[in-house]
């Protein structure tokens, strides 16, 4: 079987899964798409960091949790404190404060990851630490972030202020929470933003060059330290937005929320081809839809196993991923 055939295999696989759900439970497809878009926000950051810094960042999930909690604090403490509460808009369960909190959270989380890089990862890099060691350090950072979250916000589920709203009822018994449409849209716009940044912005081009060939980037005169900062800013802000959207769509947030989706995020990255942002998006959608679709037949508890299975199948069939280049 040549490589093209395998690519078609995955496309057909996705279409088949989608078709099956449409006949079984169409709303699962919509839920799966939203889940996929949320995963993609984590996965794009993960794949960019891998592309530039060559390590798997195990803290990506907990960074999403942190982002969710920062948004929560901005909405319930800061905005509420200054009287910016605002009731839910139209068909959605949430109001303007949550939308307004997202860019602030993105900014704060970016600053946090850049500081973490300067304090921890940069020092390891300058000592020529192996990527395995840096990955393990990121696992430490993940546990540290989770500990901080538990210390600051406690272990109980926390909730964004919300109002109950009717689902959209479409033919064929499709029920869509209106939130999913706007949250999905925000995720898609951000992904598109990253795509345009990488394609047309000066630093986006520098990022692609550095991911492709770090030594040549250096000798061509690219300031790779600035490229690394950009990478963290994008990765951190997407994680923050993803964490907030995840918390709002699940109507609650827990210290384990992000850690639980770390595996699907890694699976998305591997499926799409490590270091490929477009691959991370497509991989995330496939993983998200497959996981949701599986609940039509099997207990939702096994959802992560579905992501795992797809990831292992991909590693066996085409280790470089859907969009990966041959070495």
């Amino acid at each position: 079987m040549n490589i093209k055939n395998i690519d078609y295999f995955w496309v057909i696989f996705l279409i088949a899964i989608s078709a099956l759900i449409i006949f079984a439970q169409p709303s699962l497809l919509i839920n799966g798409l939203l889940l996929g878009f949320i995963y993609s926000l984590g996965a794009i950051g993960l794949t960019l960091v891998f592309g530039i810094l060559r390590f798997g960042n195990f803290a990506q999930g907990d960074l999403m949790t942190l982002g969710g909690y920062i948004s929560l604090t901005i909405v319930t403490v800061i905005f509420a404190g200054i009287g910016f509460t605002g009731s839910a808009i139209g068909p959605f369960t949430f109001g303007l404060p949550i939308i307004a909190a997202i860019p602030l959270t993105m900014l704060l989380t970016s600053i946090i990851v850049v500081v973490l890089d300067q304090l921890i990862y940069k020092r390891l890099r300058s000592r020529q630490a192996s990527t395995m060691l840096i990955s393990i350090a990121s696992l430490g950072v993940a546990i540290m972030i989770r500990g901080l979250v538990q210390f600051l916000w406690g272990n109980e589920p926390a909730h964004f202020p919300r109002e109950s709203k009717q689902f959209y009822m479409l033919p064929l018994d499709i029920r869509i929470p209106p939130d999913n449409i706007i949250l999905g849209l925000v995720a898609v716009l951000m992904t598109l933003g990253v795509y345009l940044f990488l394609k047309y912005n000066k630093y986006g081009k520098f990022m692609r060059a550095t991911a492709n060939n770090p030594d040549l980037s250096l000798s061509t005169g690219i300031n790779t330290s600035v490229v690394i900062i950009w990478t963290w800013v994008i990765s951190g802000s997407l994680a923050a937005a993803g964490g907030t959207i995840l918390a709002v769509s699940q109507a609650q947030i827990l210290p384990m929320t992000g850690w639980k989706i770390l595996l699907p995020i890694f699976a998305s990255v591997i499926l799409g081809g490590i270091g490929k942002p477009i691959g991370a998006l497509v991989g995330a959608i496939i993983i998200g839809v497959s996981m949701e679709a599986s609940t039509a037949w099997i207990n939702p508890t096994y959802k992560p196993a579905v992501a795992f299975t797809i990831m292992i199948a991909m590693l066996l069939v085409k280790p470089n991923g859907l969009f990966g280049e041959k070495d």
Partner: protein
Amino acid sequence: MALLNVNNINAGYGETEILHTVSIEVDQGSLVAIIGPNGSGKSTLLKVIVGLLEAKNGKILFESRDITNSPPRKIVESGISYVPQADNVFTSMTIKENLEIPSLVLKFNFKERLEEILELFPILETKMNTKAGTLSGGQRQTLAFAKALISKPSLMILDEPSAGLSPIMADSTFETIESINKTGVTILIVEQNAKKILSIADRGYVLATGENKLDDTGLNLLTNPDIGMLYLGGSNS
């Protein structure tokens, strides 16, 4: 004062010293070749000059300014372009993007320079939007040269440009190098194919086991029987 002055450089990887007090001089407008057997430290010397490897000792002056151990970015800004031996283009980017990167680093007008560079390398024009990774070895070499020249460097440093090319492609590469040099760009080149490069070089340095062994005009080195016996043996074919 020469354009580039490399004085008594010591350098290496980790504890291992590869270059032992190596010195070279490159005059404005000249074509200078560094030859020598494998493992003599030729490529290492180039890496030290362009700032990819630290010099433990010694001084490098470019246009009389000290550039020893400057970050590669500063060295590019000072007017030095470096073409590494392998992996010298961004394979996942298009030809146009490859050529654009230097203009983004050095902030010059890309469109204007692109037109000029495409006149020199017309073969690239039809492939502007293809990924560099799909190019043949010779085409990649052309792109790497174009990418290095687009910033109008005063010194171009080439690391074994003929490596991995067919004899015909290698010949045309040497012709290209000679014609680039004739436009006024100073060239410092490391080459395995010593006979070919010495026949066009103004000056040649022979390096062996990380030390200066000889330096003379290209022609004198070419006709020096000792050199042939000692250092050019493997590369005469």
